[in-house]
C-alpha cells in the first residue's frame, strides 16, 4: 500500500515519508529475500518465489514476513539464492520443492536446514550465515550490498534505505560548485573503462557554453563477454543510478538525461523504466524537484546490441538516431556531444557511486582504495575459478586476493595460469604478476586495464594464443569498420593468429604482430580500436613461449588448438570398456571388447568427447 499519493514538494516531505515507511516496517519481523537477478532467474528463482509465497500463506505468515525479490546478490553460480532474516541465513541451489520446508522450519521456527547451506569448496564445510562465506567476507560491498535490501521495483524500499537523501541534501544545502568540489575531492574515476576523473569531467561540462541546454547520459551499454556489473546494478538498484544522475545533472546544469541500456538486458530495461515512472510520480523527476526550482527528466533509450555503441561518441550518434559509429574526439563531448550540446556521459557504476559520496562525504569514499584510484569497484569474476560471480573490492586489492581468497582458486583441481582483465580490450596477466594491485594505473602499466571490470580466470588448459584469437574474433565482429587500422588491422592480426593456431605460423610474424598492434593502438579512431591489440600484445609479452611452441615446435602446450594436437589412447590404462567408441560422433575409435582401443587420426576431429567420456583417464592429448 503506497503511503504517498501526491508528488513530494520539499525535502521535509521526503523525510516524513521515510519515517512513515520505517514505522510501518517495524511492525513486520522477519524477511525472506530471494535474489531475482538475471542469473538466479535463469536458474529458476521465480518458481521458488511463488512456492515460498504459497507456503507463507499456508502458514499464516503472509502478513508478518516480508518476501522480497531483490536484485543480484553476486554469487550467481550458487543460484537460486535466498537470504533469511533474522539470522542472516544463506541458502543456495534452492528448488521449489524446498520452499515448504524453508517456510515451516526456518521462517516459522528459526531452524537451519543443513542441506541447503553453502558448502565451502576449499574446506568442504557447511557455512551457516552469509557473512561467514569467504566469497562475501573478503569483499567490501558498498554498492552491491544495497541490492539485498531493496526490491528494485519499489521506490519505497529505496527511500526506506535512505534513498534520495543525498539529492535532498544537495538541493537544500549545496550549490553546484560545491557538489563538483566534493566529487573531485572523492577522487572518483570513471568506472566504464577510461578511468577519467569524474569531477573534472563534470567541471568541464559545467563550464561549457550553454546555449540550448545540456545533457547527462548514463552508459548502460555493457557488452564485454562475461561482464555483467552494470546490468546487475541497474537491475538491482535503478533508483541509486537515477539519484546519481539527478545530482550530476544539478551540478552540471543539465535538464535532460538519458539512460542508454542494451535491449538484451530486458530486466534492466524494465526496472529502469519502472524506476523512472515511480520517480516522476513521487516528484523526484520532472519540474521543480522537491520545491528547489531544479527541473530534470530522464528518458530510457534502448541500444540494439552493437558493442561499439558503448563508446561515447557512437552512443550519442545512436541516441540521435544515426548509425552508431564513433566520430573523432578532437572536441570533447562535454563541449559538443549529443545534438551538438554539452553532454556528460558516465557509466552506470560511476553514477551509482555518487549518492554515497554526497551522503557520507568525500573522505569516506577516498578512505577506500589507493590515493590515485579511490573507492570500490565491481568485477565480474568468471572462468576457471571455484567461486564465480560479482565481486566488489576496494581498488588496490591484489589480483591474488581476488582470484584465490574470493574466487577460491582454480576449479576442477586445475592450476591458475593467468587472469584476463578489462574485457576484450584488456590484457592477460600471468600468475607471477598476481601481486599487482588492481587499480587504473598499475594495470595499464602492466599492459592490461581495469576496463569495465570483467575478470576471466584461466588455468593450464587454456591456450593463450587461442585466447588472443577469441578476443580478436570478437573485436573483428564488433568493429564498426569506419577506420582502416581497426577494420583491416584487427582482421590482419586475426589472420596471423589463426595461421599460428593452425600450424602455418612463421617466426617473423610475431614481430609483425607487435608492429601491427602498435599501429592499430596508436592510429585507430576510437577507444575500441585503440585498445583492441591489448589481448595480443599482452599474451605476446607474458606468454611468448606459447607462441614459439606453436610456431617452432608445431604443438599447443595447453592442448587446445585442434590443428596441432592429436588424441591417443593409452593402451595400458584402457580396459576396453567401449564407452569412448560409443561416444565418438565420427566413428574414429575402434577396438574389441576388453582390449585396448585405438583412435584413427584420419577420422578424428579432435573434439575431445572421448577424453571427457573416459572414466579411467586413458585418453591423452599429444
Amino acid at each position: 500500500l503506497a503511503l504517498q499519493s501526491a508528488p513530494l514538494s520539499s525535502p521535509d516531505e521526503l523525510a516524513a515519508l521515510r519515517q512513515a515507511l520505517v514505522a510501518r516496517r517495524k511492525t513486520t519481523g522477519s524477511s525472506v529475500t530471494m535474489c531475482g537477478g538475471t542469473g538466479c532467474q535463469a536458474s529458476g528463482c521465480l518458481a521458488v518465489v511463488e512456492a515460498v509465497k504459497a507456503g507463507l500463506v499456508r502458514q499464516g505468515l503472509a502478513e508478518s514476513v516480508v518476501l522480497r525479490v531483490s536484485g543480484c546478490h553476486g554469487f550467481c553460480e550458487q543460484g537460486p539464492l535466498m537470504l533469511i532474516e533474522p539470522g542472516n541465513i544463506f541458502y543456495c541451489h534452492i528448488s521449489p520443492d524446498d520452499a515448504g520446508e524453508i517456510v515451516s522450519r526456518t521462517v516459522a521456527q528459526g531452524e537451519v536446514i543443513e542441506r541447503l547451506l553453502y558448502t565451502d569448496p576449499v574446506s568442504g564445510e557447511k557455512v551457516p550465515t552469509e557473512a561467514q562465506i569467504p566469497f562475501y567476507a573478503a569483499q567490501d560491498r558498498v554498492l552491491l550490498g544495497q541490492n539485498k535490501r531493496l526490491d528494485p521495483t519499489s521506490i519505497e524500499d529505496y527511500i526506506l534505505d535512505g534513498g534520495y537523501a543525498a539529492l535532498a541534501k544537495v538541493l537544500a544545502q549545496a550549490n553546484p560548485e560545491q557538489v563538483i568540489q566534493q566529487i573531485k575531492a572523492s577522487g572518483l574515476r570513471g568506472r566504464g573503462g577510461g578511468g577519467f576523473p569524474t569531477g573534472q569531467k563534470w567541471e568541464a561540462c559545467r563550464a561549457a557554453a550553454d546555449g540550448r541546454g545540456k545533457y547527462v547520459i548514463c552508459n548502460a551499454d555493457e557488452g564485454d563477454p562475461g561482464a555483467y556489473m552494470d546490468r546487475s546494478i541497474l537491475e538491482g538498484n535503478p533508483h541509486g543510478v537515477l539519484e546519481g544522475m539527478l545530482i550530476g545533472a544539478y551540478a552540471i546544469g543539465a535538464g535532460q538525461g538519458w539512460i542508454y541500456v542494451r535491449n538484451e538486458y530486458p530486466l534492466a530495461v524494465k526496472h529502469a523504466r519502472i524506476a523512472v515512472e515511480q520517480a516522476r510520480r513521487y516528484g523526484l523527476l520532472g519540474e521543480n524537484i522537491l520545491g528547489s526550482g531544479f527541473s530534470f527528466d530522464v528518458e530510457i533509450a534502448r541500444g540494439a546490441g552493437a558493442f561499439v555503441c558503448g563508446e561515447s561518441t557512437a552512443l550519442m550518434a545512436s541516441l540521435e538516431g544515426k548509425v552508431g559509429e564513433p566520430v573523432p574526439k578532437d572536441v570533447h563531448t562535454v563541449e559538443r556531444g549529443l545534438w551538438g550540446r554539452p553532454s556528460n556521459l558516465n557509466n552506470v557504476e560511476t553514477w551509482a557511486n555518487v549518492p554515497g559520496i554526497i551522503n557520507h562525504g568525500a573522505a569516506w569514499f577516498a578512505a577506500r582504495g589507493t590515493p590515485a584510484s579511490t573507492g570500490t569497484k565491481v568485477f565480474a569474476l568468471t572462468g576457471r575459478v571455484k567461486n564465480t560471480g560479482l565481486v566488489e573490492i576496494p581498488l588496490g586489492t591484489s589480483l591474488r586476493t581476488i582470484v584465490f581468497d574470493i574466487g577460491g582458486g582454480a576449479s576442477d583441481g586445475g592450476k591458475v595460469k593467468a587472469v584476463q582483465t578489462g574485457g576484450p580490450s584488456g590484457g592477460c596477466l600471468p600468475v607471477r604478476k598476481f601481486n599487482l594491485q588492481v587499480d587504473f594505473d598499475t594495470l595499464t602499466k602492466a599492459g592490461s586495464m581495469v576496463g569495465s571490470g570483467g575478470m576471466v580466470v584461466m588455468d593450464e588448459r587454456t591456450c593463450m594464443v587461442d585466447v588472443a584469437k577469441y578476443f580478436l574474433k570478437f573485436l573483428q565482429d564488433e568493429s564498426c569498420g569506419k577506420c582502416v587500422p581497426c577494420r583491416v588491422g584487427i582482421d590482419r592480426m586475426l589472420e596471423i593468429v589463426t595461421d599460428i593456431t593452425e600450424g602455418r605460423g612463421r617466426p617473423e610474424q610475431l614481430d609483425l604482430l607487435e608492429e601491427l598492434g602498435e599501429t592499430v593502438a596508436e592510429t585507430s579512431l576510437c577507444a575500441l580500436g585503440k585498445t583492441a591489440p591489448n589481448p595480443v600484445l599482452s599474451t605476446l609479452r607474458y606468454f611468448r613461449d606459447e607462441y614459439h611452441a606453436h610456431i617452432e615446435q608445431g604443438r599447443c602446450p595447453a592442448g587446445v588448438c585442434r590443428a596441432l594436437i592429436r588424441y591417443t589412447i593409452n593402451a595400458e590404462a584402457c580396459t576396453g570398456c567401449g564407452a569412448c567408441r560409443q561416444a565418438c560422433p565420427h566413428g574414429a575409435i575402434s577396438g574389441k571388447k576388453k582390449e585396448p582401443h585405438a583412435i584413427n587420426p584420419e577420422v578424428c576431429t579432435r573434439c575431445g568427447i572421448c577424453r571427457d567420456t573416459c572414466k579411467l583417464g586413458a585418453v591423452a592429448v599429444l
Partner: protein
Amino acid sequence: LKENAMQQFVTISLDGAKVRAAKGNTVLDTALAYGTCIPHLCYVPNLSSLGACRLCIVEVVSNGRAKVTTSCTLDVQEGMVVVTNSDKVRRLRRNIAEMLVAEAPNSKALQCLAVRCGVEEVRYPFRNKDCVLCGRCVRACGEMWRAKAIGFVGRGRQRRVSFPFGVKPAFCKMCLSCVDLCPMTITPCGGPMKPGEEHLCGKCESQLTMNRDFPDTCVQCNLGRGFGCTRAVVV
C-alpha cells in the same frame, strides 16, 4: 584555404616553423597550404572530414606529451604544436599504407600512396578488393549534390557502399561524381593484376628515391596526381 577580410588567424608550430593559420581551418588544410606533405586518401576539400583512412596522422604535442591524431579532423588552435613527419608518424603511416595496398593492389592511387609512404614490402597476403571504404563517393553524393543516393551499409567486415535498400533510387541522376572521386578507378600503370599475381608495383622509378627517405615538403610529385592529392589537384 578559406580566406576573407574578416578572417581571424592563429599561430601554430608546424614541424618547428611558426606559421599563421586561418581560424576554422584544419591542420591538414594549413599544412598543405604551406607545402608540407601529409599523404591523405579519404580527405577531399570542401567535403566533411571523415577520419577513416588515418593516413593524415600527425603528432600533436601538449604538456610535453605527443598524441597521434588525424590532421583532417583537427582544427588549428593558438599555440598548437604539430609534428607532421616524425619517425613514429612515418612508421605508422607506412603500416597503414601497407594495409591499404594489400587490400586493393589494383588501384594506382593506393600503389602510389604506398610508395609515397615508404612501403617497401607487403607482409600480408593480397586481397584484391574493389573498395577500401574511403567514403569519398558517399560524401560527394550527400554533401555536394545533397542526393544521398549512396551510403555505408553494414558493420565491420560487412561494411560496404550501397544504395538505400540495395536499389538504385530515382534521385540518383547518374552524375558520376562518385566515380570521379573514387581512388579505385585507375589501375596501376602495368595494367590490372590477376588474382595471385598481385604485388607492390613501386614502378615509378623517378619516385623511388622517396621510398627510403622521402621529403617533408611537397615536391608536387607525380605520385600525388596518382592518388588525388589535394595539392596536386589544386596546383
